[in-house]
């Protein structure tokens, strides 16, 4: 592997990792604050991608489609929290697993009914459709660079939101001691609604911005969910910072493993997870 190719691969890994972070961030946020393990998180990613396809097709604008999708996803998240998830807070994790697995089936069936089962695609927006020539042969698509930058911006935004705002303070307080937060006169239910809505929106947003570079197919959510869990577990359940570091690790390790050790590449991220859990059983940055 010459140096130029090495750099391109590094870029591939970083870009993949950043996208993984965006998908995983909502999952870990919801778990950290609410203690809810949302197995239907991958379905939200799928919903985002399908909405982006649907609205882009009907508005002829990816940006408009993306905005509409994000708003609908937020609303969907709020409705799901208000009607279903809110019944789970006093129940055990098994009930949560049952409900959220059930939601996977419901969303898969809805996808099939509403949008059919064909492989769909969204064109990369005109403005970002070019590519930058890196080596004599390899060009890097501008859209992928844009996705990487957008994920970085969203990561920074999440960091600022959680560490610098009143809402973030409440989220952190809710993570460490929810009774105390309630005693201080904060409406914890409202906080939960906001956090769950945001979690769903983050997953859907990841689906939206992946739409032009992914294939939009039934079952796309389940594939992403597994990798997402690896990221969240390595990073420490509930830690946004952990998810960020873990996502980049997984992205880079997976990229290089698939080239250097193709025979075992499908195992490598799980081996990474096992090793990290041996050393730090709670993950890298557990609360």
């Amino acid at each position, binding site marked *: 592997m010459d140096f130029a190719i090495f750099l391109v691969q590094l870029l591939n890994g970083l870009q993949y990792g950043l996208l993984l972070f965006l998908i995983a961030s909502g999952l870990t946020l919801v778990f950290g604050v609410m203690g809810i393990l949302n197995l239907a998180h991958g379905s939200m990613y799928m919903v985002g991608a399908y909405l982006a396809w649907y609205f882009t097709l009907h508005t002829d604008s990816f940006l408009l489609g993306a905005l509409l999708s994000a708003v609908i996803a937020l609303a969907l998240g709020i409705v799901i929290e208000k009607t279903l998830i809110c019944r789970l807070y006093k129940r055990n994790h098994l009930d949560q697993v049952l409900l959220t697995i059930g939601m996977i089936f419901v969303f898969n069936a809805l996808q099939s009914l509403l949008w059919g089962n064909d492989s769909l695609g969204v064109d990369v927006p005109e403005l970002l459709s070019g590519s930058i020539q890196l080596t004599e042969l390899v*060009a890097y698509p501008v859209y992928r660079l844009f996705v990487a930058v957008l994920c970085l911006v969203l990561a920074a935004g999440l960091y600022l939101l959680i560490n610098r705002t009143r809402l973030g303070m409440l989220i952190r307080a809710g993570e460490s001691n929810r009774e105390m937060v309630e005693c201080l006169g904060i409406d914890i239910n409202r906080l939960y609604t906001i956090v769950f809505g945001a979690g769903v929106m983050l997953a859907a947003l990841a689906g939206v911005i992946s739409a032009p570079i992914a294939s939009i197919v039934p079952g796309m959510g389940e594939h992403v969910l597994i990798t997402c869990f690896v990221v969240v577990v390595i990073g420490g359940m509930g830690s946004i910072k952990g998810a960020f570091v873990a996502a980049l690790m997984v992205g880079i390790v997976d990229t290089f493993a698939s*080239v250097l050790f193709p025979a075992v590449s499908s195992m490598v991220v799980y081996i990474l997870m096992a090793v990290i859990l041996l050393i730090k059983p709670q993950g890298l940055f557990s609360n």
Partner: protein
Amino acid sequence: MVVQLNNKNPGKTMNHYKPLVTAAAVLLASVLSSAAAVAKEDPIRVGIMLPFSGVYAALGDAGRNGLKLALEQNADKLHGRTIEYIEMDTEARPDRAPEIATALMSQKDADFIVGPVHSGVAMGMLKVLRNKKPIMIIPNAGANVATGPWCAPNVFRTSFSAWQPSYPMGQVALDKGYKKVVTMSWNYSFGKESLDAFEESFSKGGGKVLKKILVPFPKTEFQSYITEIAALKPDAVFVFFAGGGAVKFVKDYNAMGLSGKIPLLGSGFLTEGTLAAQGNAAEGIVTGLHYADELDIPANHRFRAAYAAEFGKDADLYGVQGFDTGLLIAQAVDKLNGNISDRDALIQVMEDAVIPSPRGEFHFSKAHNPIQTIYLRTVENGVNKVTGIAAEALEDPARGCRSN
């Protein structure tokens, strides 16, 4: 209970139950004879094992549509018999296949079991159904093994073997002057069989496969592999991907700036049912397959018009394969004047069948796989244009098939 009684006191039991046994035998005999009398009026039970949810749901839908269309069009050839469909969703999950196949065979007493799409599911079905009573007809899954080492008198395939669309492409690559090629697919049997078939003819003609890249299934993060292809600088790339993976691979390959510089060849599935989603990125890709939507023969025009009228959408390859499965069933029932109770006779007429398929007429090899033409197709303006014939009347070598 009965066994226990017999062991303890056989004499007494026999005597005690004799009148009952006789009555039962008489009753059974009368039921059987009346069953024989109505056999021709009984519906023919067709079990359908296709994926109606999950990644391959679109393929399952199309296969079912095609099957029903053919049997509907040929209803007059069934000699008064009706068709009872028993539909089971495989979800393309190999682990569920044996259970569903067993249920269709034992509980539903299916005469024919049509399925599946996914080769892994096919293995599960074959384990249960080989050499059993129901006739299994595979309308898609191409794993070589089904008409190779695991071939069986009651197993037919109306689609293709993995070997068929890929083998001729090695010669196609040589004819285009490519000497060094990288091959790539998912790391599962169908993918590997496709790459091996390509390599078989390509190496025989003096070509060299620089590297065989096998991606863990169902991973679709292809960036690192495509970067590696660029580093290897081959004359061309031969790939097998299907469905969502095919869409993603073709778009990524184009976005990394390789299309136009390193030509892309493939097993036809790379551009089958995926062109709308692939858009411009697919232009110029050369593939081999036993069908093309644009195939200009009367049987294809008739089929496509009927399919569109019935289902309100364009037919595809999977619809064709389902359709041909229906044609095969109808033809066999017709030849036997509606009485399919003699299994050996049924298998015989199926082996002799000539199917007037939308893909062109075909008949079956000894291993029960179609002997068929593989068309050479190039993507032009968003359609697979037929540019020639890659191999005429191509018969799968059926390596390892002994029982037929």
